């Protein structure tokens, strides 16, 4: 018999966690939109809309200090952040297109160099995924092999029921442990029917075929056709649950400062600019090609995974209407 939880009890559960110092990150209304943000109370949870920014921030914040220094009377002190102080975190209400990115990101952040900043946050986080029941014409998770109820990346999973409650299942040891601690707030079974899942309209892409085409078309007129219009901003990459490029910059004064790691994007002209002023990616077509190649070829070559979950955020956000699903469709039909 599956466990179920009412929305009131879910809120109570989150309140209980917040009270003991757990950082609870979930969709909440922030200004004019929904964002994944730390919740001050369970009632702030807002599960209706897909958050504008992805859930990667729970592990890979937009900006973090990775070192700080101070200089007093000629003596310089350098200190590392104390990662043991990172709070245990619950990421709640994350859509499958967001949770699916976590195992994909794990591959690169624990590859030749172990990125302790990412990995420490990831280890301390329990992911409570949420089945997706709303989509728009930018959504295409199903075209990439994902699904509105895909469990990838989740430790626990919530599926909405028609009476406003949810089934709650544990998928990992972390999830089981969590469920055990919440048993007083759960019920067994429910007569309510599941809310119908979202059904993105795009038919599945043949990712092997797309990769095959990319393997042989580093040089192709397609790149200019698509990306001559590209404005060269970072909206697509910054909203993407899987884009993970970052820059490291020292900021501060002579007397004190920090070394900061923050999001970067391959659409920026300065992303590949050399100190010599040579730029190997000398226009938006070459930069956009990298975006597609990285997602559907290079990452596949290296890790056997695709760096796109079909969340559609880049499609919605692109100021000049570049639509990655349309690009994939075009390649798929070549």
């Amino acid at each position: 018999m599956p466990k179920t939880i009412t929305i009131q009890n879910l809120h109570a559960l989150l309140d209980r966690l917040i009270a003991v110092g757990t950082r609870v990150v979930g969709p909440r209304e922030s200004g004019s939109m929904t964002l994944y943000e730390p919740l001050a109370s369970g009632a702030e949870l807002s599960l209706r809309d897909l958050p504008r920014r992805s859930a990667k921030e729970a592990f890979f914040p937009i900006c973090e200090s990775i070192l700080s220094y101070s200089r007093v009377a000629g003596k310089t002190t350098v200190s590392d952040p104390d990662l043991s102080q990172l709070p245990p975190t619950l990421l709640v209400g994350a859509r499958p297109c967001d949770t699916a990115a976590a195992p994909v990101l794990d591959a690169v952040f624990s590859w030749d160099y172990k990125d302790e900043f990412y990995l420490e946050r990831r280890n301390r986080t329990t992911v409570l995924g949420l089945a997706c029941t709303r989509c728009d014409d930018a959504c295409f998770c199903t075209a990439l092999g994902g699904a509105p109820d895909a469990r990838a990346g989740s430790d626990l999973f919530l599926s909405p029921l028609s009476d406003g409650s949810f089934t709650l299942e544990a998928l990992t040891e972390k999830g089981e442990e969590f469920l055990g601690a919440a048993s007083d707030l759960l019920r067994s079974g429910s007569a309510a029917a599941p809310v119908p899942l979202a059904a993105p309209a795009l038919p599945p892409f043949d990712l092997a075929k797309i990769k095959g085409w990319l393997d042989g078309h580093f040089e192709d007129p397609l790149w200019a056709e698509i990306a001559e219009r590209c404005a060269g901003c970072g909206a697509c990459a910054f909203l993407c649950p899987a884009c993970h490029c970052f820059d490291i910059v020292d900021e501060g004064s002579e007397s004190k400062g920090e070394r900061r790691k923050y999001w970067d994007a391959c659409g920026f002209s300065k992303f590949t600019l050399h100190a010599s002023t040579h730029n190997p990616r000398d226009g938006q077509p070459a930069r956009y090609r990298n975006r597609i190649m990285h997602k559907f070829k290079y990452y596949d070559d290296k890790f056997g995974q695709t760096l796109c979950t079909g969340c559609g955020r880049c499609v919605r956000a692109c100021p000049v209407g570049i639509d990655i699903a349309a690009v994939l469709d075009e390649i798929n039909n070549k």
Partner: protein
Amino acid sequence: MNQTMTPLVDPRIWDETTAALRAAAAKLLTDGTVAAVVGYVAGRRSGSAMPAIVSTAAEAETLIFSPSCTNNLSLYLTRSKKSIGARGKLAVMVKGCDLRALAGLISENQLQRDQVVILGLACPGVYAAAADRRQPLSAENIAGKCRECSVRTPENVDQLLGRLPELPPLEDSEAAELARLEALTPPERWGFWNGHFSRCIRCLACRQVCPFCFCEQCLCDRNRPQGVEGSPRPAGNTAWHIVRAMHLAGRCAGCAECESACPMEIPLNLLNRKMAQELKELYGYESGTEAQEKGPLTSYDEKDDQSFIK
């Protein structure tokens, strides 16, 4: 949720403009007047449109004009898009608001008037960024800037395409919001902007879509020494947006592309409008649809207000 809104104008007028535009573009390309036309084509998603550069008469048949044609295409005539200009002479589709930017670029010697064929579009208005583009253009979903537009029929263009139907009066939402902010106390206003700037992710879409942000070396990219903190933190974000507004004062043409491109919905055009208001009060300057020899902040007149010199 998807209840149909009352159309602002008969939606067929966009079809008429589209037909006129396709014919004009095909002719310019066929007779060799231009090498390419910078215009809009439909996107995959229902009701969407995106910029496109077309160079054959057959491609000209894909051009459209609709309320989704929000982009200011003069962006593609700037030095940041050199590869497009390298094709030869260009024609460009411009709405009245876009034309002001084009005139500004000509004023700033970024472009020669005779280098470009201006296809002016009679425009009832475009969608607000958050609008459902499957709905007809309505009083509810029209962009803020269009509510108080004074250039719906662009003048001084090479060809004027389409006709402007009569429009019902629209409330000035942006002017009202600016007035509301002006009435706040400084700490309240600071709180308003801090809330917005704290959500900024520094994707720089505001800069990248701005026709006037054509600097090859942007202050905010400098790191030796750093001009503005590049890291997406509230202090640097605030500095960036203030620097941006200041640098565009007296240049911004009010196309509001920065605001419509912002994925975090920061109401950037309010800053631009505030600057425009100051420029009008101090120098009697307003951006127009004709090139001007000098901008208000690039010229000096002994009669200029000097009261700030203490």
